[in-house]
Structure formats: C-alpha cells, structure tokens
C-alpha cells in the first residue's frame, strides 16, 4: 500500500474548491519530500470525492449510508516483496477507488519513498476506504496498511488492532518467510480473522499447493488459502468476497456509547498540523467537537473529519466502526501518540483502550554534523523529521571528539538507519553517526537498584557493587533458509551468542530456525553475513524477548594515552580482544600520520588488549611549481584544507571527519 503514499497529498495544501472537493496542491517545502515529488494536481486520478455514484449520491453520502454491520476493517500482511502493494493497487482499481487502471509508470515502484524502495519496506502506513458490492449490497471496506518491519512492530500491532481481520499473503514462488511468521503471530495476538492467500499463482515457478500446505502445517491456519494473482487480478474479487464473508463486522455502539477512537497512525502536515488516522470504536465525531487524548490529556478542537478514498475526502461525521482522519491543527505530533485513545473532552469517564505503550527506544545512536558549522542545519533537519516521527527521542549531546551533536533513541536498528538515510537524502545533511547502542540495564542482585545505560559513556563500573549484574535486551529471531546453508546459519548465530529455540523443516527444501540472540549482535554485520552465507535466500525477522544477564565489558580506545569517548564500546568479554584488535588496526589504516609517533590502544579497564603504533610523518611532497603552474600544488593544498576543515579531534590528534564513519562501524 505504499503505492498510495504518493497519491495522498500528505503534506500538500488542501483547499476547499467550489465543488466541495479537496484539491491537492504541491507544497515545495513539504517535509514529505519523497511523497511530494511524484505528485501534481493533474496526476491525481482517483475516484474523487466530488464524483457521484449511479444513484447520484456523493461518495461520502454513500459511505455514510452504509450500516456498521456492512463494514469490514482489514489489512494485508506479507513478507517483503510478496506482493502486498500490488494487491492493494488491484483492489483499489477493482472497487473503482481509482478511476482507471494504474499503468506501469504510476504504479507503486515509482511512488515509494526512496528509502522504502531501496529496502523493500514500508516505513509509513497508509489507509484507504473503498466500497465493494457483494450480494447486492454495498460494503464499506477499510484497508489499513501496516509498516513492514519489526522495528515498527508496535505500530503494526496498533494498525492491526484497528482491524477485525487480515489477509495473510504468501508468494507462491517463495513460500513462507520469516516475516510471514512474525506477522501471522502478531495478527493472532490481536485476535484477527486471518484470510490466507497464495499470491503470484501465474508465475512459472509458483507452487501454490506446497505453499498452501505450509500455511496449514507451519502456521496452523485451518482456513483454505485462496489463490490469487495480484498482477493479473485473478482471484482478487474472490478474495474481497472472502473478506466480506469471513471477517466479522466491527462491534460498535454508535448511538448509545460516548465517542471513543484508536489513533493508529499520525503524520504531520505542514499547513494543517498533525493529521491522525483513527478507528472509531464507539459513538461519532464531527468538526467542531472538542476532543482529548486519554494518554496525554491534550485537548483540541476538531477542524475536519474525513475518509481516505484514498484521497482525503471531508465528510460530515465519522461513526463507530469507520476508519478516517481527524484534523485538529495540533502542531506537535508527540501530543497525540500512536496507540492513544481519543475521546470527547466532555466524556471524562471514557477509559483508554488497552495496549497503549509509551515509546521505548530500543537503540541509541550519536548523530553529529560532519562539519561543526552544520550543527544548526542538522538541528533543523532533525526537528522536521521528528515532526513526522515522534517515536524518535532526541537529546543534545556533546562529544569531546565530535563536538556538539545529538543522541537519538530509535525503535530499532532499521529505524535508525532509515532515519539517517532520510536525514541525508531528504534534508541533504552530511552526518557522522556512532554505532547503534542497545540500552542495558544495571541491577543490584537484590533488585534494590536498577539503572539504564544509554551509551558507553554511562558505563561506570567503579560505582558498581560486587553483586551488580548487567542485563542486555535479547530478541527471538526467526530465520528461514534453504536446507543447504543451515549449518552456516547455525554457526553464524552461535558466533553471535545465539541459543537455539526451534528448528523446523518447511517442506523438504527449507528450514525455519528460531534463536534467542542479544539485540546488540544484530547491530553489526549480522544481517549482511546472513544474506552472504545463504546467497541471499535466508530471511530474518525478530521480536523483543526481554533482558538477559551478560558478561559485558567496556572497551575504550586510547590515542596517545587519551581515551576517545566516541570510540568507546560495550562488548562481550570474549569479543574484547578481536574487536579491540580490529579497531586499532583500522585506526592505524585510516589515520594520517602526524608530526609525532602515535600509540593506538584498545583497553578494557586498565588492561591493554590490543595496540598499534603509527609512525611519525617525516615529509610532505615537495612539489615543483613548474612553469608557474601552481594549480596542481594548490589543488593538493586545498584538498588538504578541506580535509582539515572537517577535522574532529581524537585526543591530541586531528582526524578527517570522513574517517569516522569507518571507525565507528
């Protein structure tokens, strides 16, 4: 459904035209740069809100006339590239939500955020309301999209909790993959009706029977998997019918109970403030009502309510069972959090829906401007990005080596990567980031004191008692890989301190492994190594699995005796030597020689675990100024100058900033 992103004028100006239709207009300063690009007012080709159905009714009127028992709220969950977006496109076409079929040019691929395209994930969810005819009646189907990665599993679970059912889509040429399993588990946790479907049945390599059998055996889903081809449209109508038949209608009290809604997504619009996507549980809401957040207590007036058709289409009211948007003019997205419950200000007694969790950062990273004079512009860029993603926690930080910067908390490792990439691509920032740090817990044996360590700098062993224990977060990882590489995958997991939990055959060719792994072990090259040792076939997904005690040590790097704060790490005791060795030899390779000799040491406590020496620089190039041509020499000097301008200091040594990303790897 990421395909919808570009067609939804998220950050665009909304104007009320004479025909009561919302006309999107491109806003050049839109923080959703990636979305705005493909959008122009002429390229919107949807079933516009001003259009009329056969009976001459406007779409919002038609929707308003559909009773709650003919509403179906569902989402599609699938592993990456199993065809979720294509299926969503097809559904929109078939239900007339899109005026005519999408051609290749305008289809999903072009429209995604570049980070999404590169990584094959959906970062932000989207939602569409469509009308489907079944058995002579108009049914209102709300297709709720989910973000596609475990880092956003909280958002996924919130999106799912806005639904009564989901389509579990599996690629017939790939079979069940790691993300299929984890999504399925999440859906079961939310007690959703699962409609399994096997996709890509038109593909030559498709094995729909085998795939359906896996769905039954491995996932234990009793229902018969439907056969579809999202590409050709085959079976999609039957799938929609199955959604109507199998997914229960929402249970709602529109008239007797006070208004209550679940915020399952929110985004920031430059001109209208935060726009919340809500599932109305009970009651109804209209423009002019005052609403409050159960979580934060923030009170605001509703400026507009509407449906995603899939263009935002204003309507008179949102009622129980419906899914739509609410605009309040709120400026700070942190005021209304995803998962929060919305009530009317007057209904003080309304209880919050269960499941709301405050944001919990799973990893932290230092983010510093590449040049000190870029601090202000980095600050502005981070502010803009966090408007749209309030799950990022931002603190100011000043490092002795890197100067002023930020320490940011993220939902997970990928979340951090995506954030950094967007800083760079959408805001043109060149940053140096530290290796992600997974927060640790320091507890006394008697449980008397508990403290969180958010960065290696917080590590203060001196103050700890003898009974102090350090706990690190662990995850339960699901890995699906071909039989032939299972040995390598197991070795990889063991090298990363994993313990096996499960080992299940998926048919005759593939295996599903489940491992408990320290989250921090996934922060490095684990994913790349996994892809590498399986020729790209292995898939990985993981979920949080609490904390476990670990024998960790702080590894410092000293340059000429001085500790370099930004290079400190916390590693497992057994890894201290190889990691330290690798760090100092990398330092040696990357550092320019100085006028004096440099000692490079990796240290645990007061014990040196590895050392290297970098010889002193003895001479520059004594370039000749030939025939008055100073340009070459000047170019060399200017290059040196540029390098020096971006120097960060490592103790007494100045280091070109370009070196840092590699040092911090």
């Amino acid at each position: 459904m990421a395909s919808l992103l570009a067609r939804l004028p998220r950050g665009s100006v909304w104007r009320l035209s004479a025909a009561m239709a919302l006309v999107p207009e491109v806003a050049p300063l839109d923080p959703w740069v990636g979305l705005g690009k493909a959008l122009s007012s002429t390229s919107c080709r949807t079933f516009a809100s001003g259009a009329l159905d056969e009976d001459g009714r406007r779409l919002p009127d038609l929707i308003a006339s559909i009773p709650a028992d003919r509403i179906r709220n569902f989402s599609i969950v699938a592993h990456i590239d199993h065809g979720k977006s294509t299926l969503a496109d097809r559904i929109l076409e078939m239900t007339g939500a899109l005026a005519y079929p999408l051609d290749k040019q305008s289809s999903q691929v072009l429209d995604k955020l570049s980070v999404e395209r590169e990584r094959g994930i959906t970062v932000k969810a989207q939602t569409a309301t469509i009308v489907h005819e079944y058995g002579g009646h108009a049914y209102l189907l709300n297709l709720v999209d989910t973000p596609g990665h475990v880092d956003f599993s909280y958002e996924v679970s919130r999106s799912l909790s806005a639904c009564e059912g989901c389509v579990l889509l599996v690629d017939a040429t790939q079979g069940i993959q790691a993300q299929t399993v984890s999504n399925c588990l999440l859906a079961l946790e939310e007690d959703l009706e699962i409609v399994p479907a096997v996709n890509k049945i038109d593909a030559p390599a498709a094995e729909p029977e085998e795939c359906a059998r896996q769905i039954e055996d491995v996932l234990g889903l009793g229902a018969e998997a439907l056969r579809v081809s999202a590409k050709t449209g085959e079976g999609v109508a039957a799938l929609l019918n199955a959604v109507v038949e199998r997914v229960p209608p929402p249970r709602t009290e529109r008239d007797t109970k006070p208004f209550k809604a679940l915020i399952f997504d929110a985004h920031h619009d430059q001109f209208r403030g935060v726009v919340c996507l809500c599932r109305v549980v009970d009651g109804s809401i209209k423009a002019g009502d005052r609403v409050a957040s159960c979580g934060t207590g923030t009170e605001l007036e509703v400026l507009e309510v509407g449906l995603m058709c899939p263009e935002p289409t204003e309507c008179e009211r949102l009622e129980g069972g419906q899914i739509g948007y609410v605009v309040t003019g709120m400026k700070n997205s942190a005021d209304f959090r995803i998962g929060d419950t919305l009530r009317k200000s007057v209904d003080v007694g309304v209880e919050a829906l269960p499941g709301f969790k405050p944001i919990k950062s799973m990893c932290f990273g230092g983010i510093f401007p590449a040049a000190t004079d870029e601090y202000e512009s980095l600050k502005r860029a981070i502010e803009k990005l966090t408007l749209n993603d309030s799950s990022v926690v931002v603190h100011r930080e000043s490092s002795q080596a890197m100067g002023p910067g930020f320490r940011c908390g993220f939902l997970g490792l990928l979340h951090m990567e995506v954030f950094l990439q967007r800083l760079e691509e959408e805001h043109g920032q060149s940053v140096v980031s530290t290796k992600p740090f997974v927060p640790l817990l320091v507890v006394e044996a008697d449980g008397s004191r508990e403290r969180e360590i958010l960065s290696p700098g917080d590590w203060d062993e001196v103050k700890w008692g003898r009974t102090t224990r350090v706990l690190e977060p662990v995850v339960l990882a699901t890995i699906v890989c071909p039989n032939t590489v299972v040995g390598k995958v197991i070795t990889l997991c063991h090298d990363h301190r994993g313990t096996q939990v499960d080992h299940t055959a998926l048919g005759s060719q593939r295996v599903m492994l489940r491992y408990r792994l320290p989250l921090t072990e996934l922060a490095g090259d684990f994913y790349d190594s996994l892809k590498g040792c399986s020729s790209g076939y292995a898939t990985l997904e993981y979920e949080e699995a609490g904390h476990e005690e670990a024998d960790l040590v702080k590894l410092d790097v000293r340059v000429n005796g001085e500790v370099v704060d930004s290079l400190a790490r916390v590693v497992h005791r057994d890894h201290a030597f190889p990691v330290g060795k690798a760090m100092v030899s990398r330092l040696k390779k990357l550092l320019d020689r100085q006028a004096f000799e440099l000692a490079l040491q990796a240290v645990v406590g007061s014990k040196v675990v590895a050392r290297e020496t970098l010889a002193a620089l003895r001479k520059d190039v004594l370039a000749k100024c030939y025939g008055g041509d100073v340009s070459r020499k000047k170019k060399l000097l200017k290059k040196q100058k540029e390098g020096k301008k971006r120097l960060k200091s490592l103790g007494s040594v100045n280091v070109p900033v370009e070196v840092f990303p590699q040092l911090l790897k």
Partner: protein
Amino acid sequence: MLARGALGPAAARGLLLEGTRALRPQRRVGDRRELAARASEGCGANDPAARSAYVHLPFCRRKCFYCDFPVVALGEGATELRAQEPEIYGRYVSTLLREMEHYGGGGKLRTVFFGGGTPSLIPPRHLERVLGRLDDAFGIDWGNAEISMECDPGTFDLQRLVEYRSLGVNRVSVGVQSFDGRLLELCGRSHGEGDVLRALDDVRAAGFDSWSLDLMFGLPHQTAESWAETLEMAVAADPDHVSCYGLQLDDSTPFARWYTEGEGPLPSEPLAADLFRMASRELQGAGYSHYEISNYAREGHECRHNLAYWRDDPFYAFGVGATSSLHGRRVARPKKLSRYEQWVEGEGRKVGFPPPDWSGAPLREDEDEDERLLDLIMLSLRLKSGLRVNGLNERFGRAGRDVERRVLAAVEGHAAEGLVSVSEGGHAIRLTDPEGLLLSNSVISDIFVALDDDEDGE
C-alpha cells in the same frame, strides 16, 4: 625540463667555434608597431606590470618514466647534432610566434626562460626567431635581462652553447639529475655519467654569466650513499646554482604505475626526508644559500625568473601547456600540441586567450582576491625570505577580515613545534630549514583552513 634526450653516437665535443654568428636580433620598429596594433584588437592581453616571459619548448628524444609535463617525444634521431632537423621545430616555433602576435607594448622583459621538454634540442636559429619576436613585442632589457634555458647532457656541445650564448642566453640550467649512472638508467634517461661530465665541461667553457646544476632525489634504488656522492660531485662541479627536486609520482606516468610512494624500491619516507636534509646541509656548507625550498644559489645567482613566480609577479607564458599569470589571472594553455595549435589559430585568437574552460563570466572580485592570497602564501613560504604578514590586511582584509591575525594564529602551534619561525613582532613568517620545509604542506594547509573559517576566529 625534466625530460631529457641522450647524446647520440655522433656527439661531437669541442667543435670549432667557426660558423657561429652574432645572432642577437635586430629590432624591427615597423614590425613592432604593427604587432601592437594587432594586439589592441584582442583584449589587451599584455600586462604592463609583467617583466618575465616563459617559453615552453616541448621536444624530447624520449619521455622519462617520471615525467608528466607536456612533452613531444621525437625518437632517437632527434639528438643527432647537425643532422637533418625535424620539421616540427619550425612549425611549432611559428605557432609560438603567432601566439605572441596578440601581445605588445608594456615594459621591457627582464627575464626570459626557455623550459621544456629539452630546449637544447632546438637549433639556435629557431631560438633566434623567438627571442626576436619577444624583443619586437615587448622589448628585452638586453643589458640586465636574465635569459635562461634548460639544457640536457647529451643534446649539446660547446659550439651549440656558444651559439645560444651569442643569441643572448646568459644562464643555463643543466639537467644532470644524478651522477649515478645506474639511477639515470632506471629513470629512463639515457645520458650516462660520461655525458654529464662532458656537458659540465662544455657549460663551464661556454662562459655563461650563471649556470645551474639540476638534481633529483627520492629516485628508485637511491641510497643515502649514492646521494651523498652526487651532492659531492655537484659541489665539485662548482655551479652557481643547484636545484634539488624530490621525485613526485604523477598519475599518468610509468613510475606511478610501477611504484608506491614510500615503498621500495623508492626510498622510505624517513630516508627521503634524510636526503632532503643532506642536501640542505651539504650545499649550505659549500656556500650555497637555500633560498627556495628546492633551490640553492651562490649570492647573486638566484634564478630571477623563478623568483618572479615565487613572488607572485605577473608573467607571460607561451607554448603548449604553459601557464601565464596576467592581470591577476592564471591561464593554462592546452597540454596537447594539436589542441594548442587549434587554440592559437582558433578560439584563443577570437577571445584573447582566456582559459580554455572559461565560461565567459568574470570571476567574482573577492573570489579572485582570495585566490591571489592563497597563491601568495603558498609561493612565499617556499622562499627563505618567507611571507610578509605585515600589510596583508591592507591588501586582502576585505570586510574587516583580520588576515594577519589568522595567519599568525594558524602557525602558532607550528612555531612551537619548530616548523615555523616568526619574526619579532610577527611581521613575517617562514618555514624552518629543513624541518619546516619538509612539512610545508601541513603548515600551508593549516593557514588555508584559518583563512577559510566563516567567522573571524575566537
């Protein structure tokens, strides 16, 4: 000047001086007026402040393995003295003269430098044409001018030198590079030690006002012993001037493909630094002043032409790949001969010789000024006299920028390290010899950084 030919088998030493003529060009007043008129059609490319002219003569018998200068390699036959001369000389000189047609007027030239290539391959009559045209266009201050040319052992004999001298050439720079025959061979030079000794005898016999012996260090397989011996022999040859350039690996050269900086068979970095220190010590001990990072001279024998570069004075330049500096702009001519010829005949003629990549938009004045400042710093710090800090604000301190303070602040640390010496009151700075000179890039780039900061320091 770093490409040399070898003396052919027919090398004749001690040829009779008969047949040499007084070749000093006669001034032709009519020509001059005509040239000046033509020049005014262009954009007045002559700079009245310029008193120096560089002329590039690109021909070599073969290209040395380390050389990436604009050079036209002619093959073995080219050095046969008195043999049939290649036609290309005449054609090239004609192109040179056409380039000069665009200039005229201004003050008389005080220095002329023929560099290459191997200028000593060019027969005297062609050199006469060039000098004649320079004299017509600008005038040459014959009584005081320094007229230098580069000469390579094996490409000239005494008679040839006397002919050059009779044209007005009063300084030669002899590309010896090394007295170690094995090293010469490794560098792709085919003159041997014997050629070198004969050449030096001829140079001394020809009686130039001043002559330079040019050496290179940091060559493959070079040892401290070999360099000590070369320095000793250089001093024994009793030149007025010695150049010592360190080998530099330039990308397009065979050396760059074969070798890595600081790795065998090239000297290690500490050894290369020692070679520089040895030269500084030995040559200064023998009475030569280390007046520029790579140059040593007896008093009064500094190369005035090169000093003009290092003092950032304006100068003309002619020929393939040559760079001029006029009106505060450096203009590099195309490096390929065919492109250069086209340029002289075509676009260059029309637009009055702006840089080949010039878009037509004038440079911003302040940008231009900043570039001049960087040039001045970079060039002055090559010299023993150093950089005069006093007065920089007056010339470059636009918008209240305190250039002087920034320069002094940038070298403060280096002064403590002993790389820079600051004169009393901070009026001037210079790099110390040899340690500061060895790390000149580090120091200069620090000054560049200090000048580049947006805010005016702390």
